[in-house]
């Protein structure tokens, strides 16, 4: 056991992303529980509903957004993970949580407080996502492009430390793509009816109107309907959309095979150029974003992901740049779009002539989606890590501010 430096103390690892929450035991290679970071509640009672269904109001917990912190919601997610899913008594375990690289001191302190005050954990640690993603691929130094659900971020990591000056992030990721697809559908007059509304559907020819019997759901809240709609769109995105491997060229793309998608109501049609258009937003936002309904969304200042990597690397000292470029890690669900890695490689080699560029994108889907959980799992099961935990005593002596001192 000592030979590989592992020493498991049955620590719990919790990674709350904006789309999925992953929870499990340190030392394992996949999280025991993966569930959506959303919950429903019943309006009058303002309490979490036991089951998510049509009359619950859906609430998405965005743990990364620095301002809009909904701590109650986050606690509900933690509750669910520890109580319902892992079914453990947190007082018996050290708890390891992941956080965004740009989290403020206040957020970190609050996290620490919740862990010790509410859950009374044995010991606590909070580590940054990109550092953990880098560890998950076995690298202490890397530049990590995380294109997940709510945010795309590019963060340089040197010797396990985040370089703050090189952090680039923007709210263009999986969720935004789905919203754009929704708009595209509206333009195409495609009505997305979620599964819960469909009682019976019949097979129809391509492009023919759906023949469908609906369920009657009069009390459905709007947020639930939207949530279920987005599910369909995520599915569409994950199965149909694709990134073009080199510079966007409509003529070449038009020659590519179309892909057919069947909506829950049975309506089915094929998508050609459209399925390349939306992911193109990731590489050329100003040109491809259809005006979003979000206010205060400055399309002009958005960067392509390759540009983010370039800026991020360029913000670091010249001596580490070659090393960083040699260790570019792609992680997050949205990087799973087919052609994503090829395109990043292509764009970067067009920008950085004569530099050696090497991308690392784990082929394993789970590794790509859960890389920060995985890094946490590895770290928290190392024998040498156990001196880094914030212990209850330390917390009691020094208060929540200790997190700034101990968790780098």
């Amino acid at each position, binding site marked *: 056991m000592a030979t590989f430096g592992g020493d*498991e103390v049955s620590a719990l690892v919790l990674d709350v992303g904006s789309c999925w929450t992953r929870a499990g035991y340190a030392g394992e290679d996949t999280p025991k529980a993966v569930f959506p970071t959303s919950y429903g509640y019943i309006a009058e009672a303002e309490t979490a509903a036991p089951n998510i269904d049509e009359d619950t109001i859906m609430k998405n917990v965005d743990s990364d957004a620095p301002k809009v912190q909904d701590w109650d919601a986050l606690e509900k997610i933690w509750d669910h993970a520890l109580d319902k899913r892992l079914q453990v008594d947190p007082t018996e375990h050290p708890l390891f949580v992941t956080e965004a690289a740009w989290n403020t001191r206040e957020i970190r302190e609050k996290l620490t407080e919740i862990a010790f005050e509410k859950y009374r954990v*044995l010991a606590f640690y909070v580590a940054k996502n990109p550092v953990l993603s880098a560890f998950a691929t076995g690298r202490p130094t890397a530049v990590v492009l995380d294109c997940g659900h709510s945010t795309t971020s590019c963060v340089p990591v040197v010797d396990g430390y985040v370089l703050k000056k090189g952090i680039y992030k923007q709210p263009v990721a999986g969720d935004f793509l789905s919203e754009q697809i929704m708009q595209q559908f509206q333009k195409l007059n495609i009505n997305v009816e979620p599964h819960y509304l469909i009682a019976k559907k019949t097979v129809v020819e391509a492009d023919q109107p759906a023949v469908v019997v609906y369920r009657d759901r009069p009390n459905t809240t709007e947020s639930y309907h939207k949530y279920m709609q987005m599910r369909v769109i995520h599915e569409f995105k994950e199965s149909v959309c694709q990134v073009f491997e080199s510079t966007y060229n409509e003529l070449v793309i038009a020659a590519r095979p179309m892909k057919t998608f069947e909506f829950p109501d049975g309506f089915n049609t094929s998508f050609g150029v459209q399925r390349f258009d939306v992911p193109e937003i990731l590489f050329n936002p100003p040109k491809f974003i259809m005006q979003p309904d979000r206010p205060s969304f400055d399309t002009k200042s958005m960067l392509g992901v390759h540009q983010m990597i370039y800026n991020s690397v360029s913000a670091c000292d010249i001596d580490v740049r070659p090393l960083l470029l040699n260790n570019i890690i792609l992680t997050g669900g949205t990087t799973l779009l087919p052609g994503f890695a090829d395109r990043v490689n292509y764009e970067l080699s067009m920008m950085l002539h004569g530099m050696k560029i090497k991308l690392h994108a784990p082929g394993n889907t789970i590794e790509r989606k859960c890389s920060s959980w995985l890094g946490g799992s590895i770290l928290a099961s190392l024998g040498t890590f156990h001196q880094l935990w914030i212990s209850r*005593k330390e917390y009691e002596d020094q208060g929540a501010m200790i997190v700034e001192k101990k968790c780098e």
Partner: protein
Amino acid sequence: MTSNDVRDILELHSKPLNSTDNPTPSKKANKSEKEKKPDGIPRELFQLIGGPPPIAFVKPAFKAKPNLRKKAVHWEWQSFTNQGRGEDDQLTLHHWVKCTPTSESEDSGYWFAEYNKKIDILKYDDEEYEKYLTDKDWTKEETDYLFKLCDKYELRFIVIHDRYEYKERSMEDLKDRYYSVCKKLLQVRPPEGSDKGALIAMNTYDKAKEEKRKKHMCALYLRSPEEIKEEEALLEEYERIEQNEKKFAKERENLLKLLSFQELAQPKRKKSLLSGPTTPTMEVGNSNFHTSTEVPKKNRRTSASSVGSAVIEAEVHNAPITARKEKFPQGVVVRSSKIPLPKQTMILKVQKTLQEFGLGIDMINYICGPRPSIPTETVCARWVDLQKAIQTLLDVKKAVEKADHELKAKKALLQKIKQNGLGSASKSANSGDAGGKQSDVTASVSGDGGGGDESSVVPTKRERITLTTTPRDAKRARK
């Protein structure tokens, strides 16, 4: 807990990891497990026929059964404290520990604590700071801050620079300050028991040089594709020129060697002409003299005297150098086999020339080239000389032809340039440049002759020389 640990608890020795305590059966079990049994063949039969034939007879072994009677290895959920953490911190964690008698006896603390290494950053006090470390650019407060960060991030200056919030500073500023403080401290209070000079050298930092280096690196990083292309083209050109130069230098050297060899060889040949004909018998005696060590001393002396001092003297003074250096292998050899072969590429040409002289026709041997018909020592020596002379002749001839050819080409080029006159300035400048470069090159090719025109004359003279010598040699050889 990994599956390995579970296996361990249940005493299932199917992983090679544990095979040390129970080596043979588990290994064999592993092996037989690997060979897949095709369907329809009974296991026992497959054991007999399956797989490659065993090197030694092995008793068929099946997968070891878990020993369920034996008590399982005891693992315990034990608490531990980590002395790598602070002294008064009593974080108690738990882990599974295999309870073997040894592990209980050793109580040396947490196994991983020793990896809690910290580097030592030099410290200074107020007095020292006032006395030695003041700097007009740095306050004590800022220096303290820098040292705190150095300690926290263990001298990872990239990280330190990233987290530095005191004031806008370049990384070079930080490094410069840190290392100059360290150097000063080492000078005023050298640590005992270590090499002060080396330590100071280690803490020397040349800020200007570093800044310059970084600037160059940045320039390199920001190259545009055109610049890179240009650079690549230049590099290629440079390599080409260098290679050409090397080629020419080599050719020239070869030529010089050839020519100087000719000059050296001439007088030698005259000398060897004077020496009397040596007979094969003497050769035998000679080889005897060298090889038979068991001949009594007295006997040897007499045999030497019997050949005659005159002969020995003649051999000493007049025998060609080649003969003297000749080494005789033990046993009988055919002398003609010792004639060196001409260069592989020249073999046919040399042969042809020899045939022109009417030599070696009767003895044509396609493997080792022509041979003299009566290979006495002298004849062989002459033959070797002749072969060398022919090769030289051929080499020179080739060189002349090449020089001639190049000369013609250059002349044509010159003509062309002259005709074009002052057509376009840049173009003529370019080609003029190239011409200049190339004329240099021609000079180096025909280096022995001096000018282009002369070069074609000189070798012909040499040709004549060689031609005049060769027939004489040929006569000798034929004899």
